[in-house]
């Protein structure tokens, strides 16, 4: 008896050992012994893999605390039936992949998400399709997680009935890569996040911002595309942001910006493309930014520079076919413009050094006029206005005389 007990003990220890390293698995399905994900989760041992066969599962809120792999086969659909959260993860080393998650419930009290990671670490969520949820993927107080290759879409029409696609709060070392997000309130939302990476995501048709982050230091954003979002991208109250190779496109509207930067400092904005936005880049209270080698094409206003921004360097950018290249509300200038290419530049290069011999002053008189007098917009590009512009160019009076590119490039810069 004692021996038997001993051998059981040994076997179960061995079993533990094996599940950890040899992937014991449970399969959930309509015709299987286990038909509910919840049951599989509660019976699984740490390190187990749970396979879920295709079908519709509606089991209320599924909470996962142990390190398991949850793998959907042929995208089984898990529904929140419009009233609850679907997966809640509170642990470490948890993976969710291959699911179709729908209808996490809209609530004015709880931030119901399709997948919520709360106080978790080393988790990954990849290759899922999230449809019509309140929040998509929600991270709170989590670290070292990866959110990758998910498709997150919703069809909300009102901001108040809509959560964010990927919502990250109080987290650190998060990688968000190659997700596609549309139709949410904010596509990607960051608040109090540190040292995180947002790469190659596509965020479009969201009700508010394609990307919205605040108080999030030392994060990097690269290769993302943000287009047709109602208010573009907003970045506020943050230091050490690195934004490069992103595309900001077709963000139309009076309050829509390619990027709105508010109280940002010591950051880099390199090699991004801003095309056909009402306002491409808006700077308010921004200091020591390096805005370099970006392409601004066909925007209403390429750079809107507010008076309280200082010591920013705007270097080596292309300004092509924008209605207004730079607008400002100040007669002063404490920022550096240099070596940019301006398609509006009409100077010459006699010494053949590829830089124009006379400085280019990109602020137009008419942009200043319509700033205060919107109906005057109907006179845009009128011959009369062109004559005024010419006079203003020669004798600056209402545009900032010292806001000038002293070394305008004669040629388009290949960024």
């Amino acid at each position: 008896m004692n021996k038997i007990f001993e051998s059981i003990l040994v076997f179960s220890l061995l079993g533990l050992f094996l599940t950890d390293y040899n992937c014991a698995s449970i399969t959930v399905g309509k015709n299987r012994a286990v038909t509910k994900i919840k049951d599989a989760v509660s019976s699984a041992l740490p390190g187990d893999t749970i396979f879920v066969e295709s079908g519709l599962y509606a089991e209320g809120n599924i909470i996962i605390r142990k390190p398991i792999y949850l793998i959907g086969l042929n995208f089984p659909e898990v529904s929140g039936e419009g009233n609850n959260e679907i997966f809640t993860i509170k642990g470490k080393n948890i993976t969710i992949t291959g699911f179709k998650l729908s209808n996490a419930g809209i609530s004015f009290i709880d931030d119901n998400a399709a997948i919520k990671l709360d106080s978790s670490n080393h988790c990954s969520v990849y290759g899922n399709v999230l449809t019509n949820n309140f929040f998509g993927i929600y991270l709170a107080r989590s670290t070292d997680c990866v959110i990758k290759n998910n498709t997150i879409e919703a069809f909300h029409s009102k901001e108040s009935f809509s959560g964010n696609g990927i919502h990250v709060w109080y987290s650190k070392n998060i990688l968000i890569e190659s997700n596609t997000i549309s139709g949410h309130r904010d596509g990607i939302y960051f608040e109090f996040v540190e040292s995180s990476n947002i790469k190659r995501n596509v965020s479009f048709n969201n009700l508010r911002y394609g990307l919205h982050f605040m108080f999030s230091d030392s994060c990097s954003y690269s290769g993302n595309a943000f287009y047709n979002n109602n208010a573009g991208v907003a970045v506020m109250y943050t230091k050490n942001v690195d934004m490069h190779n992103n595309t900001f496109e077709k963000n139309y509207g009076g309050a829509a910006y390619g990027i709105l930067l508010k109280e940002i400092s010591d950051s880099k904005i390199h090699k991004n493309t801003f095309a056909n936005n009402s306002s491409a880049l808006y700077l308010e209270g921004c200091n020591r930014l390096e805005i370099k080698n970006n392409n601004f094409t066909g925007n209403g206003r390429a750079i809107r520079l507010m008076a309280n921004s200082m010591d920013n360097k705007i270097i080596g950018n292309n300004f092509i076919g924008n209605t207004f290249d730079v607008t400002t509300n100040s007669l002063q200038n404490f920022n550096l413009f240099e070596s940019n290419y301006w398609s509006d530049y009409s100077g010459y290069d006699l010494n053949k050094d590829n830089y124009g011999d006379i400085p280019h002053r990109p602020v137009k008189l008419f942009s200043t006029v319509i700033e205060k007098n919107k109906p005057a917009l109907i006179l845009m590009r009128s011959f009369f206005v062109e004559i005024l512009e010419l006079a203003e160019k020669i004798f600056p009076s209402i545009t900032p005389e010292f806001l000038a590119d002293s070394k305008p490039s004669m040629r388009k810069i290949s960024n």
Partner: protein
Amino acid sequence: MKVLSKIVKYQLQDAFRSRWLAAYTLFLIVFSYGLISLTGDSSKVVLSLMNLVITIVPLISIVFGTVYIYNSRDYIVFMLSQPIDRKILFLGVYLGMCISLAAAFITGIILPILFYANYFVNNLADIFIVLISGIFETIIFIGLSFYIAIKNDNKLKGFGISIFCWLFFTVIFDGILLMILQQFQDYPLEKVSLLIISINPIDLARIWITLSYDISSLMGYTSAVIKDIYGTGWGSFITILLLTVWALWPLLLGLRNFNRKDM
């Protein structure tokens, strides 16, 4: 109708062999070709072509029209001694002038664009609007010039009125409007200014082209009023309608005056 087409054909035979029309066409070709090859940027080219449409095209049309009527006085008198209806003769001369100048305009713009066709695939709609409005400006300002030249027997006076007319619509009108808008900044003048702008054929063309081109900026700035009225298919429809009215009324007035005139 048969007589009319005969006269138009005859007018065109004359115009297409004339030096002034060749010079105008050549100028347009050189201008647009130069624009495209120098800037190499299709969107900027559209804007420069727009400036052509709202300045040079009306100027040339009104000057050529005025000069033509004054120089053809003897010819017109002779033709009226023939069994021709006055209206038919007037229409024939008018259509001949419109067709030849419009043809010069289209050729002068299209040829260089075809030469650089691959540049413009994304701007076809803009180019089309530029062409249509250029044709309208040609017709409108020829109509005005005929009316002015027929109404005034004094060449110098007629010529002066023509030039002033051009200056008024291209520059003075907008200057006055800007003054009004600045003066009454505190009032909601959006609708009023739209109404005012609609009575200037040059502003109509400018807004039409600008709206198709600067859509991103205008979406940001404009109130719903401009967007709703001009930023849609309706806008194009209304613009074409107003431009048509503008093409017709100087023609009809000119026709009426010509019909009564002692030659």
